[in-house]
C-alpha cells in the first residue's frame, strides 16, 4: 500500500506542468464552490435581516384567521397570559404588542388608505427599524398621543411635512362605528420598501386601542428571539407550536413568508447545479489527466505488470494517483477559496437597491465563511476524484502486459 502511495505521489509530479494545470483547474472549481456557498449564506443573511429587522421580527402571534381576514375584532385571545408566558420564555429576547386597523388618512391636499399600526414605541425600537429609518423629525417622544409617523411616499402623496395636521379615520371593532382623530406628523421614515413607505402609518398603541375600540387588546405580538438562533430554519423551533393555542397562532417569519422558503430552496438548488457543473468539469480534467499519464507510461505499466504487479495493483496505482492529484488540488483549492472568500468578507459586495422576491437589499452583502465549506466540498472533490479514477484504473488493470509493452515501442 505504502509503495503505491509513494509511487502515486511521485508520479503525479513527473509532469509538473500538467499536474499544476490540472490541479489548478480542480482548485479553482473548489474555490469557486466555497466562495459561492459563502456568498449565498451572506445573501440569505442579508435578506433575512432585511425581513426580520425591518418590521417582521423573527415571528408573530395572531388570533387565528387575523392574517387572512384582517378583521379588527380578531384580537389575540388571553393576551395577558400570552404576554406573561412570553416573558418566561428563555429563547425570547424581546416582544411587542401591535394593533392594526385599515384607515383613511387625509390631509388638506389629499387622501389615502393606509394600515394604521399602533405600537409601543419603547419596545418597538428593538423589534423594527422604524426608529432607525426616520429621515425627518423624530421617533415618538414624550407622551403626546397625537404623534403620527408616516412613510416618505405617503408624505409625498398627502403633500404634508413635519408638524402638518392629518386626519385618520378607522372603523371600530364590533360596532363598525367610525372613529376619527387628528394627528400631527412627528416623523417621516424611509424603509426603501414601497409597501411600507406608502401604506403604513404608526401611532401609539394606547391611542390605536382606543380608536379601534379593542380595550387593552392587540392584533399582533412581534417576537425577537435571542442571538445565535439559525433564523433560516427558525420554523423548526418548538416555540411556535407552544404558543399556537387558545385560538391563537404563532408563526415564524418564514411561515408568514413561505415564498422566502421557496427562494432559499431555489438558491440551494442553483448551488447544487453550480456544484454539479463544476464537479463534472473537475471529473473530466482528472480523467483526461490520468489517461494522458497512462498513455505516457504505457511501457512502464507493461513492465510493472510483467514483473508481477497484479491487475488490482495497477488499478490501485491509478486510484492512488487520482487521490494524490485530489490531495494536491484540494490543498490548493482550500488556500485559493480561503483567500478569495476572505477578501470579500472584508470588502463585501454592493447589491444595495436590488429587489429580490419583494425584498430590497439594503446593506452590502458580506460572504460568510463556515468551517463546513472547507470540509464538505473538499471531501466531495476527493471522492469524485477517486470515483472518476475508477475508469482509467480499470483501463490500467485490464491492460495486457504484452500489449502495453508493444504499444509504447
Amino acid at each position: 500500500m505504502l509503495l503505491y502511495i509513494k509511487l502515486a505521489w511521485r508520479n503525479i509530479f513527473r509532469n509538473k506542468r500538467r499536474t499544476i494545470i490540472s490541479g489548478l483547474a480542480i482548485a479553482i472549481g473548489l474555490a469557486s464552490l466555497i466562495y459561492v456557498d459563502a456568498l449565498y449564506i451572506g445573501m440569505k443573511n442579508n435578506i433575512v435581516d432585511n425581513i426580520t429587522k425591518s418590521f417582521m421580527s423573527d415571528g408573530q402571534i395572531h388570533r387565528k384567521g387575523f392574517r387572512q381576514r384582517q378583521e379588527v375584532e380578531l384580537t389575540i385571545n388571553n393576551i395577558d397570559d400570552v404576554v406573561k408566558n412570553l416573558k418566561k420564555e428563555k429563547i425570547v429576547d424581546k416582544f411587542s404588542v401591535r394593533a392594526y386597523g385599515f384607515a383613511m388618512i387625509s390631509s388638506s391636499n389629499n387622501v389615502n388608505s393606509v394600515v394604521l399600526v399602533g405600537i409601543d414605541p419603547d419596545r418597538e425600537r428593538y423589534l423594527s427599524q422604524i426608529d432607525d429609518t426616520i429621515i425627518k423629525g423624530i421617533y415618538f417622544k414624550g407622551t403626546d398621543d397625537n404623534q403620527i409617523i408616516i412613510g416618505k411616499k405617503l408624505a409625498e402623496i398627502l403633500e404634508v411635512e413635519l408638524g402638518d395636521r392629518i386626519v385618520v379615520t378607522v372603523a371600530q371593532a364590533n360596532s363598525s362605528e367610525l372613529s376619527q382623530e387628528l394627528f400631527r406628523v412627528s416623523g417621516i421614515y424611509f424603509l426603501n420598501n414601497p409597501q411600507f413607505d406608502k401604506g403604513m402609518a404608526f401611532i401609539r398603541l394606547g391611542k390605536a386601542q382606543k380608536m379601534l375600540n379593542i380595550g387593552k387588546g392587540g392584533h399582533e405580538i412581534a417576537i425577537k428571539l435571542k442571538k445565535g438562533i439559525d433564523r433560516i430554519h427558525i420554523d423548526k423551533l418548538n416555540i411556535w407550536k407552544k404558543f399556537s393555542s387558545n385560538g391563537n397562532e404563532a408563526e415564524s417569519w418564514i411561515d408568514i413568508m413561505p415564498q422566502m422558503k421557496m427562494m432559499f430552496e431555489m438558491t440551494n438548488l442553483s448551488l447544487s447545479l453550480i456544484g454539479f457543473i463544476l464537479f463534472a468539469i473537475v471529473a473530466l480534467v482528472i480523467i483526461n489527466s490520468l489517461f494522458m499519464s497512462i498513455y505516457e507510461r504505457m511501457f512502464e505499466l507493461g513492465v510493472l505488470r510483467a514483473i508481477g504487479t497484479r491487475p488490482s495493483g495497477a488499478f490501485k496505482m491509478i486510484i492512488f494517483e487520482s487521490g494524490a492529484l485530489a490531495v494536491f488540488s484540494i490543498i490548493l483549492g482550500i488556500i485559493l477559496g480561503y483567500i478569495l472568500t476572505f477578501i470579500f468578507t472584508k470588502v463585501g459586495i454592493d447589491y444595495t437597491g436590488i429587489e429580490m422576491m419583494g425584498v430590497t437589499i439594503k446593506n452590502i452583502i458580506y460572504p460568510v465563511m463556515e468551517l463546513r465549506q472547507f470540509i464538505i466540498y473538499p471531501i466531495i472533490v476527493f471522492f469524485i476524484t477517486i470515483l472518476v479514477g475508477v475508469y482509467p484504473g480499470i483501463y490500467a488493470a485490464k491492460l495486457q502486459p504484452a500489449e502495453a509493452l508493444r504499444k509504447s515501442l
Partner: protein
Amino acid sequence: MSDKKIIIKTENLKKDYKEDGVVVHAVRGIDFMIEKGEFSAIVGPSGCGKTTLLNLISGLDTPDEGKVWLDGKLISDMSGKELSDFRRDNIGFIFQAYNLIPVLTVEENIEYIMLLQGIGKKERHNRVIEILEEVGLSGLENRRPTQLSGGQQQRVTIARAMVSKPKIILADEPTANLDSKTGTELLDMMAELNEKTGMTFLFSTHDKMVMERARRVVVLKDGMIVDKKEIDIV
C-alpha cells in the same frame, strides 16, 4: 534432453495479430523445450516473432492456440491474477533499456518485486545491497535511474530480475540500446550469474554476442523454427 530437467516447454504455440486490418501470423505452431539452468537464445531477423514467443512463454500474452509449461506448470490456462503471481515468483524480466521506474530509486526499483512478495524491510535491504554488489553497482542504491548510464541502468534491471531468485530470466533484446563494450560486459556478467546461480536464461535477440555465449539457439523465421537440427547447438 531428460524430462525432469525441462523448465520451459511449448506445444503448438500460435499467435496472430491484426495490424491495420491485416492479420499477421506472428507465431505459427512452435514446439520447443529449454532445460533448467540453460543459457539459451531465440534468434532471428526483426519481425520473425521472437518477442511474441517470449511474451507467450512468460504469460505476458495469451496464445491463440497451444500450451506453455513453465517449471511443470501449465501457464497458458492461468487467470490474470495467477499469472501475475507466477511471474512475480518465478520469472525475472530484462527488457531493452528504459524499463526502470524513473520515480523510484535504484533500491526501490530492485525491491519492488520483493515488496509484492511481502518480504520484510530488513531482508529486502540486505538482498538489494548483496545483488548490487554482484552487478557492480554498490553504493548507487539511492540514485534515480536518470542519474545512471545506460549500462548501469541495465545492470539495475538485471539486479531487479534476479533479486527475488526466480527460476527463469527472460531477456528481450537486453543489449539493443547499449554500445558493444557495455553489451559484452553485461552478457559476461549474465553468463557468470547463470553459472553461479543456476538460473535459466532465455534471450530474444539478434545480437551475435548473445548467440556466441548461448548454449542453445532457437532460430526463428516468419514465426516458425526454421530448422530443428540447428536448435540443439551447444
